[in-house]
Structures are given as C-alpha cells and as structure tokens.
C-alpha cells in the first residue's frame, strides 16, 4: 500500500496554489477524509514562494517534514526543485514547465536550473513522475494549476476519484470561472503525455 497522506503544492504567488488546495480540501471533505492544511504565503502577492501542505487522515497535519511528501504538485519548475528534500523514493511528482524567472536569473547573477536533467533525476528516484512539458495552447496560464490537478487525478494511488474533484470544483468555484475551471480540469484529466522524457 502506498497511501498518499501528504500532498505538497509549490509555486509562486499568483499561480493559484491556495485555490488549488481549497479544491483538494473540499474533495477530502466530500470523501469524508480528515484534512489539515498548512500554507506559507507571507509575501505571495509580491512574487514570493508559496507552498501549501495538505495532510489527509487522522493525526496528520499539513506540516511537511523531510522525505515527508507523498505527492508533489509543482506549478513552477524551480520551486519544484526546491522541494527535493521533502520527496522520498516512493513519492509521486507532477509538475509543469511554466517558468517564473526570479530576479537573480534575469540579472544573470544566477542560472535557471536545467529542467531536463531534473526530470531524468526524478524519473530515476521517484515512483511516478509526470512532467507537463508544454501546456495546451487553449488554456489560460492561470488555470494550469487545475489542468495539472486533472492530470494528477490519474496518477497511481491518487486519494480521490475524479468525480469528487469535479464535485469539489462545483462546490467551491462560482461565477465566471466555474466552467473554465471544469474545462481545464477535464482537459487535464484527458491529457496524454507526448515526448515524456521521464
């Protein structure tokens, strides 16, 4: 049994990390799974790092320790790499290739890390790795998070059924974005990987 108990979502302020964790929380509530979340978003609107840890089950907080993440949803490649200490050999990782360059990279004081080498490394080290090299053109970048969630639903031992996520989106999202969110989710769900390097 490879229970997914701890999920970590990582990215940059503005990528909809909290939004995504809200949907997962709702899915857990709908599935009667106890859930706790811990978010760090100190200066999120100022382009800082945002992470959201989700703990599923009794006595399971959202706090994340080293080698403590069972599923990592990375919304930004560099921030995905920053989460390496939290992964273990049985972790599953899904991450997308939507880059948000930090200032140091733009100023050429640092180099943006190589994503291909990283994908290969993860492929060797982790249980399952899904790398979305290119997002379909018809999805707004603000919905890449939902698209990834859709694809994640098909990963091994994902803790909820797709219809629970669907229900959760219906329960948490209202107005203009509801259809767009459901659409992005369904596209992700149906997404087949091309040229997967890992």
């Amino acid at each position: 049994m490879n229970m997914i108990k701890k999920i970590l979502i990582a990215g940059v302020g503005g990528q909809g990390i909290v939004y995504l964790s809200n949907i997962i929380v709702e899915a857990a509530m709908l599935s009667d799974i106890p859930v706790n979340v811990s978010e760090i978003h100190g200066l999120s609107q100022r382009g800082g790092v945002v992470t959201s840890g989700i703990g599923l089950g009794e006595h399971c907080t959202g706090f994340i320790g080293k080698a403590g993440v069972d599923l990592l949803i990375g919304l930004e490649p560099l921030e995905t790499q920053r989460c390496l200490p939290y992964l273990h050999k049985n972790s599953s990782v899904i991450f997308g290739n939507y880059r948000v360059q930090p200032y140091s990279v733009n100023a050429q004081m640092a180099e943006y890390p190589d994503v291909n080498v990283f994908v290969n490394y993860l492929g060797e080290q982790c249980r399952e790795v899904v790398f979305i090299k290119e997002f379909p053109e018809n999805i707004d970048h603000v919905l890449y998070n939902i698209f990834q969630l859709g694809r994640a639903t098909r990963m091994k031992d994902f803790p909820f059924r797709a219809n629970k996520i669907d229900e959760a989106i219906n329960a948490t999202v209202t107005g203009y974005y509801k259809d767009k969110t459901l659409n992005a989710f369904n596209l992700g769900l149906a997404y087949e990987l091309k040229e997967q390097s890992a």
Partner: protein
Amino acid sequence: MIDRTVKILTPHFLPYKTCVMGNEGIARAALEAGVNGVFAYPGTPSTEISEIFNHVNSFQTNPSNKEKYPELTSDPVYFEYSINEKIALEKAIAYSIGNRSALCVMKNVGMNVASDPLMSVTYQTIGAPLVIVVCDDPGCHSSSNEQDSRYWGPMASVPMLNPATPSDAFEMIKQAFELSGKIKLPVIVRTTTRVSHTRGIVTYGNINHEHRIAQFERLPEYINIPARTATAHSRLLDKLKSESVLSLLKDNSRLILNGSNNDLGIISSGVATAYATEILYQNNFSKNVNLLDLGLIHPFPEKEVLAFLEKGFKKILILEELDAFVENAVRNIAQRNNLTVNIYGKGFSDLVVTGEFSIDLITKVLGDFSETLFEKNKNIPLDNPEIFLDKLPQRPPTLCAGCPHRATYYLLKLAIPREHSELIMCGDIGCFGLGALPPLKMIDTINHMGMSISMAQGLYESFHDSEKSRKVVALLGDGTFFHSGLSSLVNAIYTRANILVIIFDNRTIGMTGHQSHPGAVRVPKYHEIDIPTLIKGLGVEVVETINPFNIHDSFEKVNKAMAHNGVSVLVSKAPCIFLPDFKDRIDKKMKIVVDPARCNSCENHEDVALSCSRCYAPKNNLSRAKAKLLAEISIPGSEQLCPANICNHGFFNSILEGDYKSAVEIVRDKMLFARTCGDICHRPCELFSNEKNVVPIKKLKHLVSSIDENFRDFSQPIKRAKDAIRKNKMVAIVGAGPAGLSAAYDLVQSGYEVTIFEKENKAGGMVTFAIPTFRMDKAGFDYEATQLAEMGVKFQFNTALGKEIFLEKLADEYDSVILAIGMNKAKTLDIIEDNIPVDKRMDALAFLKSYNQGENIIKDGSVVLIIGGGNSAVDAARSVKRICQDNTVIISCIETENLLPAFAEEVKHAREEGIDFFADSYVKACSLIGEKINISLHGYLSKHILRELHCDYIITAIGQTTELPAITHFNIDENLRVKSDSCFTGYKNVFVAGDISSGNNMSVIGAIASGKKAVIGIRKLLEGYKFGYEGEKALERLNTNPAPTIELRSTIIDGNINLEIEKYNLFQSCQKCNHCIDNFGCPAMVKVNGKVQIDMDRCTLCGLCIDVCPNNAIHWETVAEAEFEPVETI
C-alpha cells in the same frame, strides 16, 4: 467573496463541520459569541480575521443585502480599521464600556503600540466582553521581530489563551468572550502563524444574537487616578483567581495522550502540541507517553500541572515555540513543591528560543527525549538532492509589475543618485520596503512602523553641527504615515529638521491586502483626509504631489524638494496595481514589446571580445537614462560614428557620469591617439552627421585627454598587449606615421610581433613634421607613440625603404607587411619652378618641417603667397603669421570659398589671424623683379585678372605624391597611390595603409582608420579572423565627403563643459546595457538569450519601461483582435 461572507454569517442549529483557516475560525467564533464591533489594524498573520469583518460589515450594511438576506443582516457588526493598534484598542475598550462587545485584532508588534491602553484598562473595568487577538510570527515570515506575546498575560495581568489548532482557536475565542464578560477584563487569545494560517476542521454552531443595548454607567473605576490604583491592582489580581478562571484553567489543561508508561511526560502549548501529536501517532508511540496540553497559560494552570508532575514521570519534556514561558512556570512549580523530576526544555536537543518548530525538529527532540529512534516515516530520502539544491536561485519577493513604488524608486535613482553620495535614506515598514533589495537598493534603514521620519530627523541632528551636515530622506507608505508617521512629522517640523519626507501614496495599505486608511477611503461612510493639505496645514513650505509614472515632470519637483532647507514633503501618488483605479486606466488592447534589434545589441562593434568599452563604463550608469529623460537634443549613435570605431556613445556617457578616466580608456580601446585626436582630428563624427546640433566629441576628447594623470596611465592597453594570446606571427610595418602606428597598436594587442621601420629618426610621420606645433601637443603625441614600445612594438629608425630595407625581402621574412610610407613628396607647379629661384620658393611640407624644427627661413615683414586650399596651405599660412606678426600672408586656391578642402575651423582661425584668402584663383603668370616676385592672379572659373601682387616668398601646397621605389609591384592610381582590395595590395603578403593607400581620406583619422582596416585584413589572412572591419560605415562616409562643406557649427564649447553636455543624449543600443534589469527590475521583464522580453502573463501595462529603456527599444503595439480576450483574475 459574498459566498464566503454568507457562509461565515450563516447560523447552524446542528453541528456543521468545515475545514477552515485558523483565522477564519476565530472570526466565526467571535460571531457565534455575539461580537458587536471589531477594531483592528491589519498585519500578517492576523489580517484575515479583520478582513472577514470588513466584508461582513460591507455585506450587512449594503441595503440590497438587507432585503435578500434579512437574517444575516439583522444585527450588523461594526468594523473599522483604526489608524493604528493603540487607537483600535482604545476604541474597543470604549466600545465595551458603552456595553457593546468588542474584538480587537492585531499582529505581534501591534500589541506594542497598543500596550499603553492594555496596561491601564486592567486596573479599571470594562463593560461588555472585550477579546484581543494577537498573532505571533515565530520564524519572522512577515514581521520585524519574533517577540513572544504570551508575556502580555502576566505583564498586564489578563487571561491569555494559546491555541494549538484552528479548532482550538475557534473554541478559545468563544471561551474568551464568556470569561471577559464575567470578570470584566480583556482576555487575550494569542496565535502563531501556524495556527492562524493552517486549515483544519472546525465545527460551526449557532450565532448568538443577544442584543446589547448601548449604555454608559458613571462608575468610579472609569477615572484612573493614583489614589485608586493601589487597591485597583489587588482587585485586578483577585479577578484572576475567580471561579470562572479556575474552571477554564481546568478545561484547557487537556491530557491529550494518556499512555500506560509513566516514564515520559510532555507538557506542551500552542502548535507544538500539533507537531508532537502527529509524530507520536505516526511512530506508534502515542501510548508510551503522557501529553498535557496547556491552553490557558495565564494565570498559569498550577494545580493541573502539579497534578501531572506528581504522576511520577522520570522525565518531563516542555514543548513550546519561542521563549521558555511554560518551562519556567513548570520549573517554578517543581521547585516550590520539592519535586525532583528531570525537566527538559530550551537547550535540550534542538530546542531553542528562536525560530519556528518543524516536523523534523520535533521528531529529533522526541527521539532524543524518549531515547528511541524516531522516524518521521519509513520513507527513504532521494539520493544526493544537493546536486540540484546547491545551485537553486533564491526567489526573494519583489515589487509587482506595474507597482508605483518601483516607479518612484526609479525616479529617485535618477534624481537623487546614491552611487557617489552619502545620502541617507530611511525606510519604513510596508511593500515599498522591498526597495531595500536589489536592484533598487534605495533604503539604508528599516525599523518599525513609522520610525522613518524619526530616524531621518535624528540622523540629521547627529550631523547637524558637523561638516557633514546634510539633508536626510525619510521614505514611508501612506498607511504608515497615518499609523505613526504623522506625529513624528510634527516633531520634525517643530524642531526645524532638514529632512525630505517621501510618502509612497499608493492609495491603500498594500502589504496586508489593500485596506483603506484615512488618506484613501473607498466607501462613503469614511471621510478622506487629503495628505498634502494636511501637511501644508502643519506649516511645511515645500509640499509637492508627484505622479511617479511621469518621471519627466516629477524630476524637477524632487530636485526642488531636495534643495529646500527644512522639512520638505513629496507625495508620490499612484494607485496600487490591485486597485480598480489602476486597472481602469489600462488599455488592454495594447501590449508592450521589445525590439530585439535595439536591446542589448551593439551597432558598431562586431567583435565585442576585443576591448569593448563595456569593460569600463560603469555598470549602473544611470546617466544614459537621465539623458533620455532630460536632454533637449537626442542624437542616435549612428549619427556620430568614428572611422576608428571609437564607441562615441560609451565615451560620451562616461563623461556624463563624470568618469573621465573611463572616457579616455574607451578611446584607447580602439585607438592610440586620444590627445592627438583631441587636438587635430577633423571630427567627421560631428561634421558628417545629419543632425543639426551634435555632441562635441572632439572637444570632449581634448578635455578628458588633457587630464594628465589619466592621459599618462597606459596600463590598460599595455596589459591587454601583455595578456594577448600569442599568435607567433611577425608583421613588419613600413612607416611610423599615424597609419603605421595605429596598425601596430591593434596588432600588438592581438598577440602579433610587430616591427616598425621608419626612415626618420623618430615616429610620427606627417603628424610630427607637417602639422605645426601650435595646433597640437607634440609632446603628447610623442608620449602616445612611445607607449607602443612599452606594449612590445619594436622600432627601427633611420631605416628607409629602398635603402636599408627592401619590400621583397620584408615580405619573405615576415608573415605580413604593411606599407604605410605616406605621401611625403610635395607636388610642384611648373610655372613656379621655372620662374622663381629656389631661395624664394618652397613647398609646404619642407616649410612646415623646418618650422616645426624651429628654423626660420622667412625674413620678418615679408609678404608670402601660399598656393593651395588644403590643410597644409592653411597650416603653412598660419605658421608664417606666427613667425612674425608683420608678415603678410595671402592664400590663393582654385576652389571656391565654400568648397575649400581645408577644415572650416582652420580657415576660420586663419581669417581671424589676418590671413587673406583669394579663392577661385590661380597663378597665371609670375616673375622675379629685383628681390620681389610679381604675381598675376586670375579667376579660376571666370578667367579674368583678379589681382596683381608683389611678394617675397611663394609656398606651394598643392598636394603630395610619393617617392615609392617599389611602386612597380602595385596597381597605382593617377596620384601614384596604391590600389588595394580592403588594404591588400595583391602582392605577396603586403598590405597598404594611410595616405599611400588609394581612395583613402588623407587625414589623421583617415590614416588611423586605414591602419586598423589593414590589421583586419592581416588577421583574416593569418588567423582566419571572422569579423570585418568595424568602422566601415564611418570610413565610407569619410571617404565620400572629401571636404567639410557645411557651415562651421557652434558646438564648440569653451566654458563649463559639465553644464553644456547635459543637453545632449547620444543614444545607441549597447550590448553592455542591461539598464532595465540592473536598475528597474520589473518582474515582467524577462531576460532570454541576452535579450529582454516582456512576459505578457505578468505585464500590467503600466508602460514605464518604455521610458526606462535608454535605447528606445520598447514600445506599445496594438493587440490583434483575435489575441484580445478580457482577463479576470481568480
């Protein structure tokens, strides 16, 4: 947002389980407890609580909601963001005294501001319940310290609750309201980031709608005077011993784990309980320990703790974040009760006072405590993650794309640059504090809320009587100004401090999520205070409002405010990008694009590896940007190109920056003769420009190369020559004139071994012999020429071609040869040769050579006729005049007045010196009559007699030819000049440069350029060099403009150069630019493959980057219809 508000206001008659953030649970609990009014100041991690009440208040007071949701709006909760925490708490106390229950919310440091009312109200009394929520921030995620607010409990003698989870927080808020009502004391609920910002399951219930009628009773306790305080203190302490407190202590001292093993006991409080519980359960160790969680920590649960201690554990572990608050109390109890149990707290294992706990830390501590190997899980970490982690760039927060603060900082960078000044800038708390980080770095100090103005006036005062007295700048946000900056400003005005206060007015409290403040209200219930009016009312003389996006207009205002002696205030006013005011002004049908051809590219250098001026020009050079902003005259760099390919734009901008040394180095990157060109270059870069008013490059070159210290320092070119990778190829250069010397300069820096052969006994050629001493600094030229020897070039003087050396032999012995022997034989006129004796006639070259050697062959008071209209003629004429003022000098030439080949400036000088010109004339007849020469000058075009004149000497200056012995090897033109293909003669490995080269402009700069061009040819031949000659464009222009026929321009400036040059902007795209990244740093500007691109996902279309780019590479573009789709944010 309405959905969330409806959710939080909806009563539940049956328990309703939901997963909410700790702060949301707190707000809901206050509603369930029947709170009437909420008073707050925003601050992470407390903000969500007050935000909820802000929304609740707008929801409940919105008339349309009153109809739609009558139940939810029947008993509206009052809410305000007070201007600071002190006012918030004071008002909450008063509200409670008016018999309305109150909640007061703030972050850890806010409690310091509110401590005055807290410390006194306890001695008095309150009316309705009053609960204070204070949120601590261990680890300082977003605070200026990690103070432990639990001490306020004993400090102010108020009950202090310390929840571990959202669910605890929810319950404790309700308990706090109840207790406060009973004992008539404020009750504090203290959370931490990991309680406030975690989400957990909370069970909602009914909402208490008990209606409290406002009333005020005249009680003696409301009057706080010393006579009453002594008894009040003991009455206060009695309240803490009341039955309701005792029962709450019991309820909140929970034995969470009650293991069978009585060896190990843990007492924990706050989030530590949550960590410990998870780890103990995950490791199946929960049955082996006893864990007592303390929820109410002041008054301390002595009875409960004593009972726990008396269970007879071998060891007790105390888990609490930050200070040893619980630990000290437990030790105290153990000591007073003579218990000998071992207590482990701060200092044990990894337990420290600083920072946050984590799963890893508590796992280690529990493992050490239980002497059991604890695993967080059975998981195996990944192998060698450090190979990735060590290289990861950090991601510090930055100001948003479009942020008006960045605009203000950029403006300040240009207006009050800090690179070369001691200007102190005192910052404050808020988003704009990110201006302390790269690339802005415009802040020297940040303390606590509102300190900036005090810091500035205090620093001003410390320097006041010293020589370094200066104006100090304070920077603060609009919210902070009202929070606590205002009173400090009053003090500054009152004490006549010399400070500039800049208020970053982005119309909101930005950092915490865009709350209103008195200077920016968005609802009619509040009255807006106009900041400039307020400050003017206080008596500040210079108060200016600026729009930071209009840097041009704002620049002057900044200077004015800076120049004022006394308090001056700038209000930089533009909305935060999250406000509708910002979004409304954006035209979404436009986008911003960067022209890659103009971004980080170089227009005139191909081989940037070869000493490009980017090595010197200061990286943070702001003068380019400033020139773009302020200069009256903007000239594209391509208009002022140099045939020697000197980076005129880099040269000029170094001077703008005041860096004259770099300016000289930039000249020397490409060319040896900085001072010589400053003297005698005929400045094609200025003359052949299509612009009317041009940058006076030559004058500037003269200025910077006249600074002897810089001029004498040749260490850079010498170093380049020494460091060059050796090519092990030998090049012979025949002729040490400017062409040959320039070729040697480039070759030796490219790693070639160079030998120069010169028939004279010193270097210089025409420059040394033909240019009169009054036009140039000969010693300077000699110094420049001799530096070549320092760089490794070998000279062989007194070695003439055809005598000591032979071209065929050189070509065989050397890898390549450059022939640069010049045109050193004067042309003659038969009519003069035939009719005038040798002692009465001479050619200009011979005359100038003798003049330069100090020989005088012309008797004083002579009349001298010069024939020719070129520079040699004018040089000779002016020299004759210099020999003796009484000499009469006449120039006759066939060219018309406005087509003289001589440089216009020289002609002008000659005329001023009294030299007569007979343009459009020629010598029709001449004869010697006695000692005088009789001349008949006829019109060249008109052919009629112009004048008959008598003179003593004739100097012919009608051009030069060569006395080339080896000329048979080459194709030669009608002037006996050698034809070549890009300087290659076609004969063996021989190249040609300088005047001898056919088609080349016969000028110093022409010679230098052709020397450089020959070097490129040689490098292509010998090393397969792949770049072309870079000065081609300018050289073509030089060669096709045989004479400057344009009016002499008035750009020569003799006065204060610093004042004059600021009117110019000589702009050019530049490979070393990086200006926007280095100085502006907008997150929407992304650098890809060396070029800046605009990330449209992030760009907010503020448009300032268009003004920022010194190269004019950024512009608006209309979005194609298909691409345009309205974007909403989630």
